[in-house]
C-alpha cells in the first residue's frame, strides 16, 4: 500500500514543482499594483468588550459595561423573529468564546428559523446545552481482578502532568491507592515533575530513564499496582501533535499495553487547554481515533479564555468534558457542569 502512495506522491510532487518552478522562471510584471496605502501595524487599539446575552436577573451587577447591548437584545426578547442586530450580538458572543464558525452558524440558523420564544439568552442557552452529551459519568473501577487505568493524552503544554498530579491528590483524598506511570519519557524532566506530584499527594510512582519506551513504563506501573494491590493507575504520556500518524500509533500502542491484563483502561482523558482555538476539534478527532478518548479535561479555565470549542467537540464528536481546571491549587480541578459552563459562556 505504501508503495502505491510513494508512486502517486512522487509523480505529483515532481510534476507540480517542475511546473511551478518553470513558470516562476519566466517572471514578468506584477499582476496587481502594490498596495496603495500601507497597512497599519496595529490593527486594533482597544480590545472590544465582549457583548453579553445574560438574563436580567443575572445582570444587575454587570449592567455598567454592557447595558447598551443588553437593551438591544432584550427589546425583542420572546419575538418570533430576531433583528439582524440581535443575531450579530449572538454571533459575536459565540465566536469570541471560540465556539467556532460551524457551531455558531448552526445556532444562528436555528434562531432565524424558529425565533427565540423563550428570549434570546434562554434560547441560545437551550441550544448550546443540547450540544452536550447526556451520559457524562466518570468510571473509577475496573472489572474484578483488574487494575483500573486512566490514560492521559494531549498535545504539548496543555497541562497533562499537572492534571494527573491534581487528580492523584483527589483520588488519594478519597481513600484510593494510586500509582502514577511517568509515561512521558520524551520531554526533559517530565518524570521529575510527576515525581514531585507523587511526593505531594502520597501516590506511588513508576518511572524510567528519558527516552525509554512509554509502554514499558505503563506495563511496570501495572505490575507495581498489582503487587501492592493498588486501585488505580494514572498514566502520563508525552505531549504530541495530533497530525502525526507515527506519534498517534505510538499512543495506540501505549493504550493497548495499558489495557492488557491486569490493566483495564476505564477512562482515556484528552487534556485540552482552554485557550485553544479551532484546532482543538481536530485534536479531539485524532486522539479519539488513536486512543478511544472517553472524556476531556479542560484546563486553564481560570484565565480569560472561555474554552467554547468544547461545545463543538461535544456536538460533533460526542466526547464529554469531565473535569475542568480553574486554578493552580490542588483543589482547583473540579467536575464539569455543562449548565455552569454555558452560563459562563453567555454571561460575563
Amino acid at each position: 500500500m505504501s508503495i502505491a502512495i510513494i508512486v502517486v506522491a512522487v509523480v505529483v510532487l515532481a510534476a507540480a514543482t517542475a511546473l511551478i518552478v518553470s513558470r516562476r522562471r519566466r517572471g514578468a510584471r506584477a499582476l496587481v499594483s502594490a498596495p496603495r496605502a500601507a497597512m497599519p501595524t496595529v490593527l486594533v487599539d482597544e480590545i472590544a468588550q465582549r457583548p453579553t446575552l445574560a438574563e436580567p436577573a443575572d445582570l444587575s451587577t454587570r449592567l455598567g459595561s454592557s447595558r447598551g447591548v443588553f437593551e438591544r437584545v432584550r427589546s425583542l426578547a420572546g419575538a418570533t423573529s430576531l433583528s439582524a442586530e440581535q443575531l450579530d450580538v449572538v454571533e459575536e458572543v459565540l465566536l469570541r468564546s471560540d465556539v467556532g464558525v460551524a457551531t455558531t452558524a448552526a445556532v444562528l440558523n436555528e434562531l432565524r428559523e424558529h425565533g427565540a420564544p423563550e428570549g434570546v439568552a434562554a434560547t441560545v442557552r437551550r441550544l448550546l446545552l443540547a450540544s452536550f452529551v447526556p451520559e457524562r459519568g466518570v468510571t473509577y473501577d475496573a472489572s474484578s481482578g483488574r487494575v483500573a487505568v486512566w490514560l492521559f493524552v494531549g498535545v504539548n503544554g496543555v497541562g497533562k502532568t499537572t492534571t494527573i498530579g491534581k487528580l492523584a491528590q483527589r483520588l488519594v483524598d478519597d481513600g484510593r491507592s494510586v500509582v502514577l506511570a511517568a509515561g512521558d519519557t520524551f520531554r526533559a524532566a517530565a518524570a521529575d515533575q510527576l515525581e514531585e506530584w507523587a511526593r505531594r499527594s502520597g501516590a506511588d510512582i513508576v518511572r524510567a530513564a528519558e527516552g525509554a519506551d512509554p509502554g514499558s513504563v505503563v506495563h511496570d506501573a501495572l505490575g507495581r499496582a498489582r503487587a501492592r494491590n493498588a486501585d488505580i493507575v494514572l498514566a502520563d504520556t508525552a505531549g504530541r501533535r495530533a497530525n502525526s500518524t507515527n506519534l498517534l500509533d505510538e499512543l495506540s500502542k501505549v493504550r493497548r499495553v495499558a489495557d492488557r491484563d491486569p490493566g483495564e483502561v476505564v477512562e482515556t482523558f484528552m487534556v485540552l487547554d482552554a485557550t485553544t482555538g479551532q484546532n482543538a476539534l481536530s485534536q479531539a478527532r485524532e486522539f479519539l481515533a488513536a486512543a478511544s478518548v472517553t472524556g476531556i479535561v479542560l484546563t486553564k479555565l481560570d484565565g480569560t479564555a472561555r474554552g467554547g470549542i468544547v461545545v463543538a467537540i461535544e456536538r460533533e464528536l460526542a466526547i464529554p468534558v469531565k473535569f475542568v481546571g480553574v486554578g493552580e491549587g490542588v483543589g482547583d480541578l473540579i467536575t464539569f457542569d455543562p449548565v455552569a459552563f454555558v452560563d459562563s459562556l453567555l454571561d460575563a
Partner: protein
Amino acid sequence: MFDALSERFERLGATLRSRGRLSDADLESALGEVRAALLDADVELGVVRAFLDAVRVRLSGEALSQSLSPGQQVIKAVHEQLVEVLGGSALKVTYSSRPPTVVLLAGLQGAGKTTAAAKLASWFKQQGRQPYLIAADLQRPAAVEQLRVLGSSIGVDVFSEQSTPLDVARRGVAEATRLGRDVVIIDTAGRLSIDDALMQEVRSISDATTPHYTFLVIDAVTGQDAVVTAKAFHETLELSGIIVTKLDYDARGGAVLSARGVVGRPVVFASTGEKIADFDLFHPERMASRILGMGDVLTLIEQAERTMDQSVVADSAGRMLSGTFTLDDFLAQLNQVRKMGSLGGLMKLMPGVTKEMRSAANNVDEGELNKVEAIIRSMTARERTDPSIIDGSRRTRIAKGSGTTVSAVNQLLKQFGEMRKMMRQMGAGGASLPGGMGRMASMAARASAARNEPVPDGFEALRAGMSAGQSARAGTGSKNKKKKGGRVTPPKQR
C-alpha cells in the same frame, strides 16, 4: 476539515467571473468568505474586522485583472495584505555594544517558553554568539531541570539557583557578564495574563535586567484569547517581538495575526517542531498562506529551486504528458524529490492535499523508498522502458533481486501503470497540467478505493490548491502564463 479558502472561492467564482469590475456586492460576498476563513483560522473577531476594513478600502473599485479571476484577485489582495501586516516593520536582531545582549521570554503556561529558550540559544550559537541561559521559572516543578537537560544537549550553560526569580535573573546576568557571554536568555514562569502578582514579578525581572529584547512566546493553536494575552503582556513589558510555537501542528495559526494586530510588534521567530533545530526566523508569506489555508507553496518552491535538477524534472514532466514516461523517469523524479526532503514533509507543503493523503505520505519511511528504488534498479533497461513485458517469471526475478516480494513489485507496476495511463489521457485531452492532475487524482482515488486503500483522494483538491498557489506566488512579482480562470497551459511537448 475546513475548506481551504481557494475552494470556497471556486464555488463563488461563477458569480464573480466575467464582469469588468468588482461591484460592491461582489466584494462583500467575497470578503464574507475571507471572513469565515480567517475566523476558522482563529483570527480574533476584532482583528478580522479591522483587517477586512483595510482590505475593503484597497479593493473597492479596483479594476479587474485580465489574468486572474475576480475570486483569485481578492485572495491575492488579501494574501498581500496579510503578508504586509505579518511582516511589516520586521525586527533585525542586533547585539548590544556592551554585552551581554539580554533577551527576556514571557508567555502563558504551556506556550513552550522553556523549549523556545533552548532553541533560541541554539540559534544564537549558530550565529556565532556565546549564549547563556537563565532558568527563572521556579513555578513549574522541574522546569529548571528541563532547561538544564536541554542546555546540556546544545552545549549551552544554564544558570539556576534556589532563590527568587528576580534574584536568579539578576545574578544570572551578572554571571554571564563575568563569564564573558554575549547573549543571555531568561526563561520565566508561565502566567495567566490576569494574575497581577505574577505579572508584577515578570515586570520586576524586566526592570532589574533591562532586556534588549522582550519576546512574547505564543502558541499557534491559541484561539480568540490571543489578543487579550498579547495586549496584557505588551502593557506590562513593552514587547519587542513575538515568537510563535507549535507551527508543526495543523492549526492555521490565526493567533499570530491576532497578536501582531494588537501589539503592532513583529513576529520574529517560529518554532516548527520538537527538535532543537526546528526553529528559525519567521516567514510572513508562509504564515499568510497558512492562515488562508493555501499550503506552503513558497517553501516548496524554495526547496525545489535549491535542490532540484531542473532539466531532469522538466524533461520527465514533459514525457509524462506525452505518454512516454518510463520507470527511468520515475526513478529520476524519485531521487529529485528525495533530495528535497521527506515525502511527508513535502506533501504538507503542497496546497490542496487532504489530511488523509498527508498522513499516508507522512508514514512512508526511508526504507520503503529504498525498496521502491531497489525494485526499479533490479529491472533491465528494456523492462524499465516498457514495463508491459514484465511477466510472472520476470516479476519473481525482480522481487528476488531487490529483496522484496512479488506483491510489492506488482503494486509498483500497477500504480505506475495507472499513473501513466492518466497522464497520457491528460496529454491527449490537451488538459492543463493542474486541471489534469485533479482528474488524475480522482482516478487514482477511484482505483485505490477499489483496493480499499486510503491513497490519493487528496489530489481531488489539487487543482484548487494550484490556483491558490498561483495567487500566493504572485506576491513575489512573477507573472504566470495562464488563461482566464486560472488554468495553466501545459508545456508544449507534442
